[in-house]
C-alpha cells in the first residue's frame, strides 16, 4: 500500500467524524434498521476529493463508531460501507473536481455511487449477513435493496448538489487575466 499523505490522514479523521455525526441524525424509513443516511453523501464527496483509501477508511471507521456507540458492531454492514467508499473513490479517481465540474463529471460521480451502493447493499452486505448471521435470504435482500436504493437516492441528490456547490467555490487555475 502506498503511504497515506498527511492530508489523507486528516481527511479520513475529519471525514469519519462527519460520517459519525450525520449518521446519528438519520431519517428512518419504513424498513427496520434502515435509514436515509446523509453520511453516505458526505462519504461520496470525500471519496471523490481524497481518493479510494480515504473513502474506504471513512466508511469503516465512521460506521464502526456509530455501531459501537449505539449497539454492538454489525460487521457485515460496516464492511459494506467501507466497500462503497472504496468503489466510489476508485471510479472517480482521475476526476479532478478542483478543475471545475461539468455534466460528464456529474454523470460519472453518479454512476460511481449508484454502482457502489447497489453492489454494497444488494450484494456485499446480504452475502456477509448470510455468512455471519445466517438470517433468511429474502429478508436480507429486501433490507439490502431498500438501503441500497435509498442510499443511491440520498447520495445522488445531496452528494451531487454538494459536489457542484463545492466546485463553484474553488478558484480555478488561470481564472485571472492580465489587464491590457
Amino acid at each position, binding site marked *: 500500500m502506498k*503511504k*497515506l*499523505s*498527511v*492530508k489523507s*490522514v*486528516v*481527511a*479520513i*479523521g*475529519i*471525514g*469519519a*467524524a*462527519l460520517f*459519525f*455525526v*450525520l449518521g*446519528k*441524525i438519520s*431519517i428512518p424509513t419504513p*424498513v*427496520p*434498521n434502515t435509514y*436515509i443516511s*446523509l453520511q453516505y*453523501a*458526505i462519504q461520496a*464527496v470525500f471519496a471523490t*476529493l481524497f481518493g479510494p483509501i480515504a473513502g474506504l*477508511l471513512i466508511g469503516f*471507521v*465512521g460506521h464502526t*463508531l456509530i*455501531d*459501537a*456507540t*449505539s*449497539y*454492538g*458492531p454489525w*460487521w457485515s454492514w460496516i464492511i459494506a460501507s467501507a466497500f462503497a467508499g472504496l468503489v466510489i473513490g476508485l471510479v472517480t479517481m482521475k476526476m479532478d473536481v478542483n478543475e471545475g465540474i461539468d455534466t460528464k463529471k456529474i454523470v460519472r460521480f453518479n454512476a460511481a455511487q449508484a454502482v457502489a451502493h447497489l453492489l454494497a447493499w444488494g450484494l456485499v452486505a446480504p452475502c456477509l449477513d448470510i455468512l*455471519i*448471521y*445466517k*438470517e*433468511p435470504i*429474502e*429478508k436480507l435482500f*429486501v*433490507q439490502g435493496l431498500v438501503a441500497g436504493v435509498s442510499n443511491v437516492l*440520498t447520495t445522488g*441528490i*445531496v452528494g451531487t*448538489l*454538494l459536489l457542484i*456547490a*463545492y466546485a463553484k*467555490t474553488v478558484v480555478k487555475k488561470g481564472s485571472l487575466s492580465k489587464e491590457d
Partner: protein
Amino acid sequence: MAKAAILSYIKRDSFVHELTGTTKLIFFILWSVASMITYDTRVLVCMLFMSVVIFKISKIKIKDISVVLGLAAIFLIMNNLFVYLFSPEYGVGLYGSRTVVLTIAGPYTITLQQLFYHLNMTMKVICVVPVALLFIACTDPSEFAASLANIGVSYRIGYSVSLALRYIPDVQREYHNISQAQQARGIDLSGKDKLFTRMKNSVAILLPLVLSSLNRIETISNAMELRGFGKNKKRTWYRLRRMTGKDWFVVVFVAAVLVIDLLVTFWDGSRYYNPFL
C-alpha cells in the same frame, strides 16, 4: 440533539479499566469474531454469561448505558420481527423438524424450531453488546490510537482514528450551530416537510459544514506537516502502556474462548446445535 444516546468514556476504578487499551482491543476483536462464527447454543449461553460477568467486574452501571441498551433492544426486536415476517418457517428448514406450538393465520405458525432460531440469533448479538459497550466506555480515547499501532495497524491510520475521536464533538457543535442558523432562516429538516424538500434543505446545512471541514483539514494537515508528521516509519505514543501480567492473562483467556468456540462449533460438522434430533 441525540447527544444523550452517544456513549463515551466513563472513568471508573476497575479491573477492566486497568487493562491496557491494546488488551481491550484484542479482546473486543476476538470476542466478536467468536460470536460471529458460532451458532451453537451451548457456546452462546456461555459467552452471554461471561459477558455479563465482565460487565459486573467493570463497575459500569446499567444506568450509565441505559439509553444505548434501549436502542439495542429496539434494534433486536425489529430485526426479530422482520425475520419472522419474511420466513416464519426458517427454523424448521434449519433444524430439520417441525413442532407446532401455535397457529396464528395462514403461513404464520409458531414452531419450536423457529423460536429456538430466534433465541440463538438474539443471543449472538446480545453477547457482543456488553463487550462492545465496555470497550467504548472503559478505553481512554487518547490511548486508543496507541493500541491500534500496538497491534500492527499503521500509525497513520491510528492517527486518523484518534483525529476522528478528537473532532467528533467539534463537528457536532458546528453542525448544531449551522442547523440553528439555517432554521432561523426558515429551512426545516423535521418531519413537517416532504422528504424531497427535506433532502434539499439538508444541503443548505451540509454545504457550510463540508466547506468548514475542508478548511479544518487544510489547517490541521498544515500543522502536522510543519511538525514533520509521517517522516519516520515509526512513532512513539505518550499514552502507550506496557502489557502486564493481567493483560496477558486476559489475552490468553479470550484466545482460549475463541479456540473452544471453534472446537465446539465445528466438532459435529455443523454450525448449529440441534436439540430436536
